[in-house]
């Protein structure tokens, strides 16, 4: 089983991100279970969503406390919420930021992980450019596909196009594609941020 925890803020599409990831896994014939952190938070409050993927039926119903991967949609959370709690030491970290890990103040922490497992992608900017709205969730899933190898980009793209129709779908898919390419390129170069 592979477990992903997504951190962001209310209004950033955190729950949708987990949903999309589960749909992407489903298109690959995997079992997937996505669920939100169940709060009554309003826009701007820290929120969490989860996605499990497996080759067999998922019966477990507890929240994910030991994730294999983290997607952090809002870097301002790094210093207000213990986002890294329980992360698998061989796990993956994807942060929505154009800054470097040094600039984010977590270089020392991420150095413990295999270099190509950690990555920053400026997904909000990608979304603004492609979609015209600062919603980084879909783009980040492209980045996730690139660094984790858990899911094919095509499945992510298909999930996005199913969820968002017409131009919005195409624009989100393009943002995800660019994030995928950026993350892949960085992985190839052993770089960790752009």
């Amino acid at each position, binding site marked *: 089983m592979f477990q992903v925890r997504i951190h962001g803020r209310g209004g950033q599409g955190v729950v949708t991100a987990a949903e999309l990831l589960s749909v992407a896994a489903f298109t690959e014939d995997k079992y997937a279970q996505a669920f939100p952190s169940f709060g009554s938070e*309003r*826009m*701007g*409050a820290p929120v969490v969503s989860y996605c499990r993927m497996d080759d067999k039926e998922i019966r477990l119903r507890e929240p994910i406390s030991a994730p294999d991967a983290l997607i952090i949609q809002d870097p301002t959370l790094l210093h207000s919420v213990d986002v890294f709690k329980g992360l698998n030491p061989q796990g993956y970290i994807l942060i929505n930021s154009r800054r470097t890990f040094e600039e984010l103040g977590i270089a020392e922490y991420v150095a413990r992980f295999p270099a190509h497992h950690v990555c920053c992608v400026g997904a909000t900017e990608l979304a603004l450019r492609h979609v015209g709205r600062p919603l980084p969730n879909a783009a980040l899933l492209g980045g996730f596909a690139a660094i984790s190898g858990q899911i094919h980009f095509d499945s992510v793209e298909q999930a996005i196009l199913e969820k968002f129709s017409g131009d919005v779908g195409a624009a989100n898919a393009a943002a995800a594609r660019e994030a995928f390419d950026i993350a892949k390129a960085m992985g190839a170069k052993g770089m960790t941020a752009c």
Partner: protein
Amino acid sequence: MTEETALQRVKFYQTGTHTVGNRLIDKGARSVQSSMDRSNAITSGHRACQGCGEALGARYALDAAMRAAEGQLVAVNATGCLEVFTTPYPETSWQIPWLHSLFGNAPAVATGVAAAMRRKGRSEVKVVAQGGDGGTTDIGFGCLSGMFERNDDVLYLCYDNEGYMNTGVQRSSATPPTARTATTPALGDAPGNVFGTGKNLPLIAMAHNIPYVATASVAYLHDLEDKVTKAMHIPGARYIHIMVPCPLGWGTASDATIHIARMAVESGLFPLFEAEHGEVTRSNKIRRRVPVKDYLAPQRRFAHLFKKGQEDTTRIARLQRMADANIERFNLLGERESP
């Protein structure tokens, strides 16, 4: 009063703006909000969305009520956004004694608080009950009607954002026709909420012959405060229905709340008036009339009326006729002798 519950003095940086009241005007004419001594009944740190009209409206109303009651105020709150966002785990924004019981019983709980205060010889303590439009016009309506009919000594404040926002924007009986909500989706041949439904609670309140009924809006601070202050000095059952836009549910920019609220009034869709013992005594005249269309267009809940190339002129015209009828009924342009 213990240290912990003592009122915080407001840190206040604003000068000379229209939002909280111009400090350049005569002292007696300034708003409660512009005073350094306002009680700040709901203090900062609550978890409302940016630009929440309800957060603003409740603070305006309660600060005015606190001043009128000279600090001797108890508030009862129905379940809803206001209740949830002011009491986030593990904190509270309330600087006044505050009781939340249930969604549908706030008027009755307030009646109980008022009765106890009377019995305890504490009749200087005034009681307000407050709830959203759902808590007021729908589920709490029976208790509210009972409170009115018995003329219980409670001021009831309804914060009307035209839907059940706390549960994710569903229709209430205060949702306007054509508005899209989660239970009136913009689908089919009558998209959004249908025409010919809904209730006008201020008029229903008037039908109970209670001493005071008024409508108010967050866009008109002085008017709102005046009405609350006046109501606080009248014994018996009183009702104020306050229009408070909800950026999340209406799909409006968070910095447009006041603008939108003002257009609701200026279009005639939300008339401002006062009534005593069942008779309208005054209505606020519209200074600059705006077409209903201007009010609807910036709100995503009405987006289906403005689809590119196929504006829903029929429904927009019907909404305009509703506004026109209000203008006529409440004499909003002052064409007749008052009221």
